[in-house]
């Protein structure tokens, strides 16, 4: 590559700012992770390495509360992610593999509606709606609210993948007298797997992370990890919160990494 060309592209300081950007993005997370291994009772002093706060998370006085919250969080996230992934896969097929139609733009607007409406507004609207239809607050109300905002997150990678798959594949199957249902389940779906998995994982993380909407629609004594953590940090950051945060951070990182590699694997020709 010619020296001049490189020179035109690079600006002094941009590399440094990029590293600054990464430092800013990661510093708080690293600090919390490091301090979660602190032996001290206080978050301000460093007393050496220890796993005691991780032990505390699983066996300490608050462990029961956090365990229930974790179970709730995972039940909600799995249910919401599954349902929204199914809905999003069907919708993507309808949007991308079913020809043009008049309501298409409107349909897309509806699918991305949860992304456009500010979270606090969604929370208020859902609260009012559940109240008006007298839906009892509990896990079910949270799951319903989560399914909605998970749909666009599942839809994006799924539709991106579907566009990348040539229609010829199913056409060939149809030419060989496969029914459309068979073309869908035997040809399209298997090809779609990476997109679907990645959509599911994103929906799962988004559900696992949600605080504001959950906080508005949750019922008596039903805590998810974020609401339980929020309740705890409002009273000051305790060392055990850092351990929980680090664990949750780990789950998110693993899932995103998984989603990254799944969507990268055998990308469509």
């Amino acid at each position, binding site marked *: 590559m010619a020296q001049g060309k490189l020179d035109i592209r690079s600006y002094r300081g941009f590399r440094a700012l990029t590293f600054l950007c990464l430092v800013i993005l990661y510093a708080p997370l690293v600090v919390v992770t490091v301090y979660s291994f602190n032996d001290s009772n206080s978050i301000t002093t460093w007393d050496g390495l220890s796993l005691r706060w991780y032990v505390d998370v699983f066996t300490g*006085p608050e462990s029961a509360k956090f365990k229930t919250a974790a*179970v*709730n969080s995972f*039940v909600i996230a799995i*249910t919401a992610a*599954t*349902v929204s992934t*199914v809905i999003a896969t*069907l919708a993507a097929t309808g949007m991308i593999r079913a020809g043009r139609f008049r309501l298409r733009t409107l349909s897309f607007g509806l699918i991305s509606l949860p992304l456009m409406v500010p979270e606090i507004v969604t929370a208020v609207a859902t*609260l009012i709606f*559940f*109240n008006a239809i*007298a839906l*009892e*607050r*509990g*896990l*079910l109300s949270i*799951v319903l609210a989560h399914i909605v905002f998970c749909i666009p997150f599942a839809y994006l990678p799924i539709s991106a993948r579907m566009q990348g798959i040539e229609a010829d594949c199913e056409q060939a199957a149809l030419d060989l007298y496969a029914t459309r249902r068979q073309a869908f389940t035997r040809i399209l779906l298997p090809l779609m797997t990476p997109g679907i998995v990645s959509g599911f994982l994103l929906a799962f993380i988004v559900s696992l992370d949600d605080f504001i909407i959950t906080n508005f629609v949750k*019922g*008596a*004594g039903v*805590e998810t990890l974020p609401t339980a953590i929020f*309740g705890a940090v*409002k*009273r*000051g950051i305790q060392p055990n919160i850092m351990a929980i945060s680090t664990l949750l951070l780990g789950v998110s990182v693993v899932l995103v990494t998984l989603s990254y590699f799944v969507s990268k694997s055998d990308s469509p020709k």
Partner: protein
Amino acid sequence: MKRTMARLLTTAALAVTATAGMAEEKVVVFHFFEYMPQELIEKFTAETGIEIVMDTYDSNEAMLATLKAGAMGTYDVAVPADYMVKIMAADGMLDAIGEGELANKGNIEQQWLDVAFDQGRQYSIPYQWGSTSFAVNRDVYQGDIATTAILFDSPAELAGKVNMLDSQGEVMAMASIHMGISQCSTDRDQLKALNEMLQAAKPNWVSFNSDTAKEVLVSGDAAAGMIWNGFNAKARSEGANTEYAYPKQGYIVWMDNMALLKDAPNRANALKLMDFLLEPENVAILTNWTQYSAGVEGVTPLLDEELRTLPEANPPADAGPGVFIEACDEATQAVYDRIWTELKQ
């Protein structure tokens, strides 16, 4: 595809009910945060086999709002303060406790039995009572603290370092005490003056926090702060050099009460919990932990020695009067709501 959907929804519903059904016998308590020791919760479960499911709030107003926002019918009991019991009862949110339904009702101290906010204890039982004023970090400020001016006309050492409770009822009542006006004043000049006084005081406040009222004093993030008396005792035991003030203008007295909610899903268990909380032995465990005061007969001999001499629990002779928070009517409340919003905007 519809079948798949249906199956998924059924699975979801099953998962939901499975998690909800884990506890066989339970009582769902909507409680002030950090207000019931783990020891007592475990003791109740051990004695009755009933599990306590707890959700918390950080102000009476927030509790009321949450209940009104569709949470009625999901909680069995809540722990409103005096004026809030009155508001909730008037709103039909409380369930009357029938004659003879509480075996230990006779244990309620006489002075807390026929209270103005719940005549004859129809809906509630005493939980704890105490006072609200403020505490000052003595390392930062050594002057006279027996005055509400600490909050509303802060001395230079404390300016910009005062934490207020994020609780409209308590802040407004304290401000009224400072101004020497009645709490539900309808006098326009008084209300205007109250509004101006609060606006002038606001620059001295660093934050509005109820749930960290104690922590900000311990950590030194605030040098003075509105606080409940028992909380300051805890702050001191956590190493803060803070002194709780009994201002000469007066201070807030409150009684928190466990009230039976309308449509309680576990009404019988709720009554068992109330009976449990009227046993002197249990109330003593509670009181020794909260460091407030009980409203039940026979508790005093069971209390820790230091509780008797606790400065927070013993107003000095020259302290002003303790007053309860009043519930205002709608039109008056609207004015106070506006003052509060202006204050926090």
